[in-house]
C-alpha cells in the first residue's frame, strides 16, 4: 500500500450494506462465492470422486482391497466415504487455507478493509461475517464431494444395502444419510484450521503470505501428530481425531471420539477467533 493511503481520509460511505447483520453476512457470502477461485476449488474437490471412481473402474478390482476404497467396487455409496476420507488430509485443508488466508488479508491488499472497518458494520461484526462465510465454505466443500461422489458412485458402480464396520447392514437411504453426516462432521473438523487461517489473515495484508503461513502451521501440526515420542501432546493437536468420522459407520455410531474431535475444533476456533478479534479491533486502519 502506498504511504499516502496511511493518512487518515474522510470516512468513506459504507461500500457494502452493513447496518443489518444479515445483509453483511449475505454480502460476505457473495464475496466468497462470487470469486472464480472458490469455484475452481470446489470443482477440484468435485473431481476427487470422479478420479477415484474412474481409477477403480479401470483397474477392474472386485472389492479386493482393504478399507473403504476396497468397498467402492461393490457398492458405489462407499465412493462418497472414500473420497471424503482421502480429501481430508490434503485437498480440503488446502481449500480451506486458500479461502481463510484470503478473507481479511485479501481485503487489506485491495484497500477495501479500510472502508469496511470504518463502516457502521463494526469490526466485530465484520469478523463474524467472515467466519460465517468460512463455515459455509467448509460445508460447501464437503457437500460438493458428497454430491459428486453420489453421482459418480451411482453412475459407475452397483449400489445397495450398506455394510457397516460392525458387520451389520443398513438400507441405502440410511447409508446416504450417514454419508451426509460424515460430510458435516468433516466440515466441522476443518473449523479449527479455518480459525487459524482467519487469525493469520488478520495479521498481514498479503493473502499469499497468510495462505503459506496457515498451510505451514497445518504441516507442522501434521508432522507433530506423526511423532510417537510426543504422544502426550497428541490429543491437543488439530488433526489428531480427524479420522473419527468413520465412527459414524459403526452400529450404533460411536460418538465418543467425534465429540472429542468437535470439542478440540471448538477450542482451536475459540482461541484463534478471539485472537483475530483482538487483532482486528485493535488494529490501526492503514
Amino acid at each position: 500500500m502506498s504511504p499516502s493511503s496511511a493518512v487518515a481520509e474522510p470516512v468513506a460511505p459504507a461500500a457494502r450494506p452493513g447496518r443489518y447483520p444479515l445483509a453483511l453476512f449475505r454480502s460476505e457470502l457473495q464475496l466468497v462465492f462470487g470469486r472464480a477461485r472458490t469455484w475452481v476449488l470446489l470443482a477440484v474437490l468435485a473431481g476427487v470422486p470422479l478420479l477415484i471412481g474412474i481409477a477403480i473402474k479401470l483397474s477392474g478390482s472386485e472389492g479386493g482391497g482393504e478399507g473403504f476404497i476396497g468397498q467402492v467396487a461393490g457398492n458405489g455409496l462407499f465412493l462418497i466415504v472414500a473420497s471424503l476420507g482421502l480429501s481430508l488430509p490434503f485437498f480440503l485443508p488446502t481449500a480451506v487455507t486458500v479461502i481463510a488466508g484470503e478473507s481479511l488479508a485479501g481485503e487489506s491488499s485491495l484497500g477495501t478493509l479500510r472502508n469496511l472497518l470504518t463502516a457502521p458494520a463494526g469490526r466485530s461484526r465484520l469478523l463474524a461475517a467472515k467466519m460465517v462465510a468460512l463455515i459455509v465454505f467448509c460445508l460447501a466443500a464437503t457437500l460438493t464431494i458428497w454430491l459428486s461422489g453420489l453421482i459418480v458412485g451411482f453412475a459407475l458402480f452397483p449400489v445397495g444395502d450398506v455394510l457397516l464396520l460392525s458387520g451389520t447392514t443398513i438400507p441405502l437411504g440410511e447409508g446416504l444419510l450417514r454419508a451426509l453426516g460424515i460430510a458435516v462432521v468433516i466440515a466441522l473438523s476443518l473449523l479449527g484450521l479455518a480459525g487459524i487461517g482467519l487469525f493469520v489473515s488478520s495479521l498481514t495484508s498479503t493473502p499469499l503470505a497468510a495462505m503459506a503461513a496457515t498451510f505451514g502451521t497445518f504441516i507442522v501440526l501434521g508432522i507433530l501428530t506423526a511423532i510417537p515420542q510426543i504422544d502426550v501432546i497428541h490429543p491437543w493437536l488439530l488433526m489428531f481425531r480427524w479420522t473419527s468420522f468413520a465412527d459414524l459407520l459403526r452400529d450404533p455410531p460411536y460418538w465418543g471420539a467425534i465429540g472429542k474431535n468437535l470439542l478440540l475444533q471448538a477450542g482451536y476456533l475459540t482461541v484463534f477467533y478471539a485472537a483475530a478479534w483482538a487483532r482486528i479491533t485493535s488494529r490501526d486502519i492503514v
Partner: protein
Amino acid sequence: MGATQRSRRWLVPVAAVAVVAGVGTLGPVVADASPKLPGISAQELLAKVQTAKVDGLSGTVQSSADLGLPALPGVAGGSDSPSGAVTELLSGKHTARVAFAAPDKARVSVLDTMAERVWTMDGKSAWAYDSAEREAVKLNLPAHQPGKPAAGTPKSYDPQSVAKQFLDAIDPSTKVDVSGTEKVAGRDAYKLRLIPRADQTTVGSVTLAVDSKTWVPLQVTVLPRTGKDPAVQVGFSQVSFDVPAASTFAFTPPKGVKVTEPKTPTTRPDRPAKPIDPKAVPGKPNLKAGNEPTVIGEGWSAVVLVRGAELTGANGPLDQLLAGAQQVQGSWGKGKIVTSKMVNVLLTDDGRVFAGLVTPQTLQDAAAKAPR
C-alpha cells in the same frame, strides 16, 4: 481508543487459551473426583467382589498399555504381521464395546481407526469379524459346555475377568488394602489396591476400581514400581447393567464377506488376547512347536523361560530393540537384556529367553538356577 486500551483486547485470546487448556486438562480430573462412600475393609470388599454377579452388562471399555518400550516410528500401525501385533499390544490405546449376558453370550468389538474387529457368540456359534479384511470366521460352539469361553474372545477386554485373574493369584505375597474411592464411568467405586511384597518385581501396585453397588470391578490399573503413569489400564468409560438384547450377540454374515469355518474350535493365532496377567509375557516371537514355556519361581517374581526361540528374521522392530540391548554375562553364560518400565527380557546366547515382570537382576538369578 488509546493504545493501552486497545492492547488490552489481547487479554481476550489469552483468556481463551487459559479457559480451553483448563477445561481440557482439569475437566477429566474434576469428573473423577473421589466420591464419599461408607468405609469398607479390604476383606469385605474382596468378598463382595468374588460374589459379584450381574445378569448382563454392556458398555465401552478403554484400554491403554504403556510398558515403556521405546516408541519406534513407522511400526505403530499394521496388526497383520506378528511384529505389528506385538507393537500394538505393547503401546496400544484401544476402545472396545463389550456386551455380556451369559458365559456363552458375549460380544467384544474393538474400535480401530476406520475399522472394527468383532468377536461375538450367541450361545450356538461364535464369530470373529474383521472389517478391514471383510472376513468372518465362524465357529460352532460345542454343546453342553456353557461355562467354557469361546475361542478367540479376548477376555481381557472384560475388566471383570481381568480382576478375577488377579484375585485368584492373591496369596501372602501381596498386601491388599482399600486405598480410597473414585468415579469410574460415572459410578462411585472403591479402590482395592494390591501391592506386591517382593521387591524383585517391577509391578508397583495393581488397583481395582470396584463399583459400590454391583461390586463389579470397573477398572484395573497397573502401576510400575517407578513412575506415576499406569503401565496398563483397562476400564469402562461407560457402562450399563441392563441385560443386552439377544440380537446384540447375533451375527449375520453380510453379503460380500468371506466366511471361513475351521473344523475344530481353535484360537485365532494372529489375535492373541491381551496379556495382563503378571505371568504372561507379551511379545514372545516365533515360538517353535514343542517349546513349552516353563515358569520359574512363583507369584510376582515368576520368570517365564522359553527355549529355542527364533529371534532374528524379518522382525524389523525386534532387531532394532535387540541392537540397543545391554550385553550381560554371569555364571549362566552370556546374553542380552532388554529392559523396559515393566517387562524385562533376557536372551541368552544359547537360545533361552527369560522374561517377566521382574528386575533384570532377578532374571539373571533365574537364569543361573534354570536347567539348561
